[in-house]
C-alpha cells in the first residue's frame, strides 16, 4: 500500500517535472481511469450510430489519486491497424505531437462518481478502426492521467466505424451533366467551324 502510494507519488512528481519542461509524455501518465464503450453490433455508421461511454476512477487506487483532476476529456482514437502507412495518425510519446486521438467525444469537469455519455458519431469521422481513451487534466490544462477501453497493446475491444461518403445524388448528376455539356460544346464548336469553312469556300 505504501509502496503503491510511493509509486503514485513518484508518477505525479515525474509528470510535474514533465510539465515544467513543457513536454508531457504518454508513458509517464498513470492509467487510473476505467473506460468502457458500448455500441450496437457490427459496423458503426458515422452520423447515425451512437456510442455510450462510461468512465470513472479505478477504485483500487488509493484515495487522493484524483486530487489534481479538474477536467476529463474523452476522445476517439485510431487503432494501430488504421495508422499503418498514414503518418498523419502517428502515435508519438510526446502528447503535444501525438496524433492518435483526433476526435473529441466529450469534455466534462471531473466528478468522483462514474459518468456516462451517449455520443452520436460525427459526420467527419473517417472509415477506420478505433478505441476510446479518456484523459484527466489538471487545473493548468495538462494531462495527468488516462484510461482507455482497450488493453495496453490496443488489440481488444476495438470497433469499426464507416464514414459518410459525402456524395449526394445531386452532385453526381451535376458532375455528369457538366461533363457531357463540355464535350457536346466542343463538338458544337467543331461543327460550327466546319460550316464556316464550307461557307467561305462557296
Amino acid at each position, binding site marked *: 500500500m505504501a509502496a503503491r502510494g510511493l509509486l503514485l507519488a513518484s508518477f505525479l512528481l515525474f509528470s510535474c517535472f514533465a510539465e515544467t519542461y513543457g513536454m508531457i509524455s504518454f508513458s509517464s501518465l498513470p492509467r487510473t481511469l476505467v473506460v468502457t464503450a458500448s455500441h450496437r453490433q457490427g459496423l458503426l455508421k458515422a452520423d447515425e450510430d451512437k456510442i455510450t461511454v462510461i468512465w470513472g476512477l479505478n477504485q483500487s487506487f488509493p484515495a487522493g489519486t484524483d486530487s489534481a483532476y479538474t477536467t476529463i476529456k474523452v476522445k476517439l482514437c485510431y487503432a494501430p491497424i488504421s495508422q*499503418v*502507412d*498514414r*503518418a*498523419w495518425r502517428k502515435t508519438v510519446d510526446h502528447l503535444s*505531437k501525438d496524433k492518435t486521438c483526433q476526435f473529441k467525444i466529450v469534455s466534462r469537469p471531473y466528478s468522483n462518481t462514474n459518468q456516462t455519455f451517449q455520443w452520436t458519431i460525427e*459526420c*467527419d469521422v*473517417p*472509415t*477506420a478502426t478505433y478505441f476510446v481513451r479518456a484523459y484527466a487534466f489538471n487545473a493548468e490544462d495538462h494531462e495527468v492521467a488516462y484510461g482507455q477501453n482497450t488493453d495496453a497493446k490496443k488489440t481488444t475491444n476495438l470497433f469499426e466505424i464507416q*464514414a*459518410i*461518403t*459525402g*456524395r*449526394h445524388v445531386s*452532385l*453526381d448528376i*451535376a*458532375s*455528369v451533366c*457538366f*461533363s457531357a*455539356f*463540355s*464535350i457536346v*460544346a*466542343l463538338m458544337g*464548336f*467543331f461543327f460550327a*467551324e466546319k460550316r464556316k*469553312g464550307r461557307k*467561305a*469556300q462557296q
Partner: protein
Amino acid sequence: MEVQGTVPESHPPKFTLPVDTEHKATEFRLFSVAAPHMRAFHLAWVSFFSCFVSTFAAPPLLPIIRDNLNLTSTDIGNAGIAAVSGAVFARLAMGTACDLFGPRLASASLILLTTPAVYFTSIASSPVSFLLVRFFTGFSIATFVSTQFWMSSMFSAPVVGTANGVAGGWGNLGGGATQLIMPIVFGLIRHTGADNFTAWRIAFFIPALFQTLSAFAVLIFGQDLPDGNFRGLQKSGDKPKDKFSLVFYHGITNYRGWILALTYGYCFGVELAVDNIIAEYFYDRFNLKLHTAGMIAASFGLANVISRPGGGIISDVVAKRFGMRGRLWTLWVVQTLGGVFCIILGQVGSLSASIAVMIAFSLFVQAACGLTFGVVPFISRRSLGVISGMTGGGGNVGAVLTQLIFFKGSKYSKETGITLMGVMIICCTLPICLIYFPQWGGMFCGPSDKQTEEDYYMSEWSSTEKEKGLHHASLKFADNSRSEKGRRVKAAALPTDESSPTQV
C-alpha cells in the same frame, strides 16, 4: 529595333502593335488586349493557369480527402506521380497537334476533354478512382505546349523569350494560387453548412467551371496566327498544310530538342516535384501547422509571377548583345545556380534560412524554365510544336523520375532527397554545352562562316517541297531570326539588302 516595318501585301491587315514580315509583334505590351497578339497572350496564360489550378487542386485539400477516401501515404504518393505523368505523352501529342491544327483548336480541345476528369473528382470514392481522376486531370497541363507555340507564332525573335516566359510563368502560378484558392473555397462552402466530406467535393466545381469557361474564351476570341486561323489560311492557300510524319520526323531528329528535353526536366520537372513535397517537408521538419506549411508551399509556386517571366526577359536582353550564345550561357549559369541552392536547401537546419534558400531556389529554377523557352523557338521552324512538346514532355519526365528516385518510400529522408536532387540538377544541366547552331555558335564554339540562318531552316525542307513553295514561312522566320547573331555582327546583316532571291 528598326529591322522591319509592315510589308504591303494583297490584303494589308492593320495591327495595333508593330510587326515584322511574318506579322509577328515586335513589342510586348502587357496591359493591352489588342487583337490578335496581346489577346492571344491573355487567352493563353489564363487558360493554362486554369489547368494548373485544376491539376494541383487536390494537394491543399488532402487532409480532408485522405480521410474521406481512406487513402494511405502510398496512395497519395502514387496519385501525385500520376498527376504529372499523364502529361509526358500528352505534351508531345499536343506539340504535333499544334503543328497540324493550330494552337487554338488543340488547346481548347484538350481543355474541354479533360474537364470531365475534374468534375468527376467530385464523385471519387476510392483510392483507385482518386488516382484515375488525378491522372486524367494532369493531361490538361499539356496546354503548356500550345501556350508556348502560340506565343512563338505571335511574337517575334526580340520579344519571344519575354512572351513565352510571362505566359508560362503566369500559367504555372496556378499551382501556387490553387494552394490558397481551394482552402478558401472549401471554407466558404463549409460555412454554408455542408459537411467536410461534401464541401471538398463541391469545391472542385470551381476549378472545373473556370477551365470550361476559359476554353470557350479561347475558341471564341482566339486566333492561331496574326493573319488568321490555320484552317482559314490553309483553305485560302496562305498556309500550306503539312504532313504529320514529316513534321514529327524533323522534330525528333533534331538533337537539340532532346538536350533541352533533358535539361527542362531539371528545372521544370524539379519545380513540379517540389510543388508536391514542399508543404510536407516544412510541416514535418519544422513542426509547422498545416496551414502555415501550405502558405510556404504556395509561395514557392507564386514566385512564378516574376521568376519565369524574368528568365524570358533576361534571355531576350542577353540575346540583343550576345545573340544565341548569350541565351545558352545564361541558361546554363542560372540553372546550375538553381542546383546549388537546392543542395543548400537540403542542408540548412533553421526555418528562416530554409525559407530564404527556398525562395532563392525557386527564383533560379523558374528563371531557368523561362530561359529554356527563349531557346526553343529557334531550334526548328517547321516542327516548332514537336520541339516544344518534347521539351515540355521532358519536363514532366523529370518530375516523375525525381519523385520516384528521391521522394518515394522511406529510402532517403526528405532533406537528403532535396540535396541529391540538387546534385542531379547540376549534372543534367551540363549537356547545354553540347548545343551548337552552325549559324550562331554554341557555348564554346563560334558560328561557322559558311552557314546562314536560311541554310539551317531550309534544311528541314526537301527540294521537291521547296519547288512547291511550302517553305516560305520558314524563310521569313530565318530572315527575322538574324538578330540572334548578337550586336557585333548586326552591322553586316541588314536584311533589307540581303533579301532572299526566292522572295516571290
